[in-house]
């Protein structure tokens, strides 16, 4: 790496000016893990976001998490622990190792958007929004942020917002990995809100296919309006496994991934059914 400069701006305007001036040679760092491991050779400048006051977990119409908040800080925050029956803790405690969770930030994970990320499918099904700054502040749905990122844009992420969940709702998550803290071969998150015992809102996302997590909208639509019983879960999980676009890579074959999708969706939905007391 040819890193020569280190900047620590004290406000977002100043940080943005550094990116505007230096382009891709300037890399934002929260914890800095991904820049250390994966930074492109043209990186010359670190822009440390630690001076921007973005490490916090607040209860604002749900949850607002500052971009430089570490996973450990989220896990240890009372608001983070309470959110939707503790789902953030349940998932984040399975992300990387404690050593890395003490450093890695929620903004960094979205900025890197690794296809194996466990956080991204979770946040997709929780209907997260991302606050970004690119000369002006705006808030956009996570999927839209990921699309702009895929198109090559690199806005400065300032906050992640999670909405207040509906009254009878729950989230289930499943991850398949080779060792306790290895990255996922495949992961799966489901969210269901019930109304009179029927699925009113359904969100299902699968990551590590081996591409970046996306929602399975056809499968979501099939479950919407149904009750969350065992036969329905089996049918929906089979449908997810049959319809998903999965590929081979060095971690797993497409065929194995297809099985994991079926099992992952099934377990995640079963977990939701358990959390909601069977019928909700």
């Amino acid at each position, binding site marked *: *790496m*040819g*890193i*020569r*400069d*280190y900047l620590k701006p004290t406000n977002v305007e100043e940080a943005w000016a550094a990116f505007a001036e230096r382009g891709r040679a300037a890399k934002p*760092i929260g*914890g*800095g*893990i991904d*820049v*250390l*491991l994966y930074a492109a050779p043209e990186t010359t400048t*670190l822009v*440390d976001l*630690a001076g921007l006051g973005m490490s916090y977990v607040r209860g604002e119409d749900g949850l607002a998490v500052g971009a430089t908040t570490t996973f*450990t800080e989220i896990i*240890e925050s009372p608001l983070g622990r309470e959110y939707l029956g503790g789902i953030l803790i349940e998932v984040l*405690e399975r992300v*990387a*190792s*404690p*050593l*890395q969770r*003490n*450093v890695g930030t929620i903004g960094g994970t979205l900025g890197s958007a690794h296809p194996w990320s466990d956080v991204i499918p979770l946040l997709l099904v929780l209907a997260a929004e991302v606050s970004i700054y690119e000369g002006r502040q705006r808030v956009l749905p996570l999927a839209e942020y990921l699309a702009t990122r895929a198109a090559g844009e690199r806005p400065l992420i300032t906050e992640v917002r999670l909405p207040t969940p509906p009254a009878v709702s729950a989230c289930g998550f499943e991850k398949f990995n080779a060792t*306790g*803290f290895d990255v996922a071969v495949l992961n799966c998150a489901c969210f269901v809100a019930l109304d009179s015992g029927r699925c009113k809102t359904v969100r299902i996302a699968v990551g590590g296919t081996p591409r970046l997590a996306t929602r399975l909208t056809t499968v979501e639509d099939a479950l919407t309006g149904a009750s969350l019983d065992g036969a329905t879960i089996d049918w929906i999980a089979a449908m997810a496994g049959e319809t998903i676009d999965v590929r081979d890579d060095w971690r797993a074959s497409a065929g194995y991934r297809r099985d994991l999708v079926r099992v992952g969706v099934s377990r995640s939905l079963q977990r939701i059914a358990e959390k909601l007391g069977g019928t909700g």
Partner: protein
Amino acid sequence: MTITLTINGAHRTLSIEPGERLLDLLRREGCMGVKIGCRAGDCGACAVLLNGRAVNSCLVFAVKADGGEVVTVEGLERDGRLHPVQQAFLDGGGIQCGYCTPGMVIGAVDLLSRNPDPTEDEIRKGLAGHLCRCTGYVKQIRAVRRAAAAMRGER
């Protein structure tokens, strides 16, 4: 560039490269208990406490320690007495080749600072990220339980 920090309680002003890893800075400053394993955050041999939390020093830019406090395994003993976690590893044979030990001790110190009475499951999860290629982790886990008891004043 120049940073100021404390390393094992000593105030230091040090000249560093902006892209340098904390691991390399600490070893240059003589903290050889900070081991080089994978340099990728996979093994935990380089773990140190940064502002009280265990981190892979290979995954942290040295500049992130500016104004902060770093404790390596060399800084755990007090008045010539080993830290209870070190003593428990020694007493319980939680060491074979010893390469993972400094990092694992640091990880255990962080764990016990937040959870003074961890279950075996919590210890296993708390020490995920520390690889030991000699043992089956049994004696290290036992050592952490003994250290926890000692730190609670039960032994």
